[in-house]
């Protein structure tokens, strides 16, 4: 006789185990990087250029490069993404075009990051002759994070109650006035969350910038948007696989800075979302 309660106990234990198998390594990864990376962090590491073929010195140009790239990506992706989300949530009708757009977004989100790299190389670097530059890298990253921004912004817009729109329209406000004065202000926390998540994603990606911007070793700051730049994720890749005999401390330190940057952005996004939920008035 099989005892259903014993079966349940075993099953639940296995499920718990599966969960541990995911969560514990995540914790370990973060702990290892903090434990080994934090001691490497000091002012000099953060503010100095890399020296002796990246075996000494700091990572300042890589930090700056990543910040430039992320800002460039968001300048490109936020307006398009936001307007696209407004189209989907406020203007589109339930028709074939709408379905096609949604499908395109899903696919854009699923394109492998290295394929974005190829695309950026072909379009921006070669076709538009921007060369390997911050501009090319930013645009490539911008297109890559577009789906994240569209999807989260759309959710934020759609979570604003429909009745607010009706009230505004019934008072004689136009459609755009309604969007501008009622829908957008109430969706801003959600849009901000999506934008920051997009930023985090852009900051951490390596493959799309490999051929579009990343400089292997450029111990100075970029001069213009047409200049190449170092970037944190690529720098970490380079010093962990391409350059022999790099001090472990530098590797862990770089990994720590990158992880801290990305997690900080995510944390900010989570806090905004949490505060908004608590403050929500309807």
């Amino acid at each position, binding site marked *: 006789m099989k005892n259903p309660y014993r079966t349940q106990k075993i099953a639940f234990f296995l499920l718990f185990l599966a969960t541990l198998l995911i969560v514990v390594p995540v914790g370990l990864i973060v702990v290892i990087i903090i434990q080994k990376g934090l001691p490497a962090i000091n002012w000099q590491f953060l503010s100095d250029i890399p020296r002796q073929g990246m075996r000494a010195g700091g990572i300042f140009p890589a930090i700056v490069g990543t910040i430039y790239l992320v800002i460039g990506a968001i300048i490109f992706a936020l307006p398009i993404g936001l307007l696209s989300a407004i189209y989907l949530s406020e203007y589109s009708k339930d028709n074939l075009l709408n379905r096609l757009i949604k499908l395109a977004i899903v696919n854009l989100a699923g394109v492998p990051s290295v394929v974005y790299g190829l695309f950026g190389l072909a379009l921006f670097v070669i076709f538009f002759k921007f060369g390997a530059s911050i501009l090319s890298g930013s645009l490539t990253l911008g297109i890559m994070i577009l789906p994240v921004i569209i999807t989260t912004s759309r959710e934020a817009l759609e979570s604003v109650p429909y009745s607010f729109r009706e009230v*505004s329209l019934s*008072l*004689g*406000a136009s459609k755009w006035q309604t969007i501008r*004065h009622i829908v957008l202000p109430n969706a801003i926390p959600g849009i901000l969350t999506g934008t920051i998540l997009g930023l985090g994603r852009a900051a951490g990606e390596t493959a799309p910038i490999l051929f579009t911007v990343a400089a292997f070793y450029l111990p100075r700051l970029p001069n213009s948007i047409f200049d190449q730049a170092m970037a944190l994720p690529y720098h970490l890749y380079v010093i962990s696989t391409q350059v022999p005999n790099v001090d472990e401390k530098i590797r862990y330190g770089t990994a720590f800075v990158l992880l801290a940057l990305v997690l900080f952005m995510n944390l900010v996004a989570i806090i905004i979302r949490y505060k908004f939920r608590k403050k929500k008035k309807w």
Partner: protein
Amino acid sequence: MVKFDIKDLNIWFGSIHALKQVSMEIQANEILSVIGPSNSGKTTFLRMLNRLNDLNQNFKMSGVIKLEQEDIKNINTELLRKKVGMVFALPLPLPLSIFDNVAYGVRMHGTKNKKVLGEIVEGSLQEAYLWEEVKDRLNESAFKLSGGQQQRLCIARTLAVQPEVILFDEPCSGLDPISTAKVEDAMVKLKQKYTIVLVTNNVKQAARVGDRTAFFLNGELIELDKTDKIFTAPQDKRTDGYIRGKFG
């Protein structure tokens, strides 16, 4: 004077025939009560008068609605909605302060002058019998008001854009009897200046405030007459049955 002149109005939402061959006139400065069981088409009828039904993708209509002899299809939607205001079933303040709620519509129509806005807000709140209760806290969130206060705020917000007609869509369905009485009082006084169309589930409310009453059933206008007559000697059996609570 005839405010609305409606002829052979049919409305469909997809395959649902929501209103069938409705023809009627709405007089200026009267309160027209619209009663009927749920899904009888009375809210659809109401939302036709300010073209709020147009927001529905599957909406189709035939027939003519004239506002003071002009087909509402030819009137700019925003202007029409300014002339024909609406108060919804539930109190629906916008997530703004009390002041900004009332000023919202006025601002959207282009008034920016602070002094003018202040006067309009005060006047509208007084007309809706809310001024005394909120005059010291105009900058607080509208959500801090009680349900009844919120509904009167919504009335004030509608009045602020200086409409000619006000549509009430079951305005007291979420309110307690005392708040209901206050809203009804307001309505009766408003009638001097405005034309009022009141959709209600509450037959007694229709009897209390309506000059004339229309009875809708399954998308058809069954009967329209003086309120006294509808409630004492209805022509149609179905009207009689509904009023006596036999169905609905």
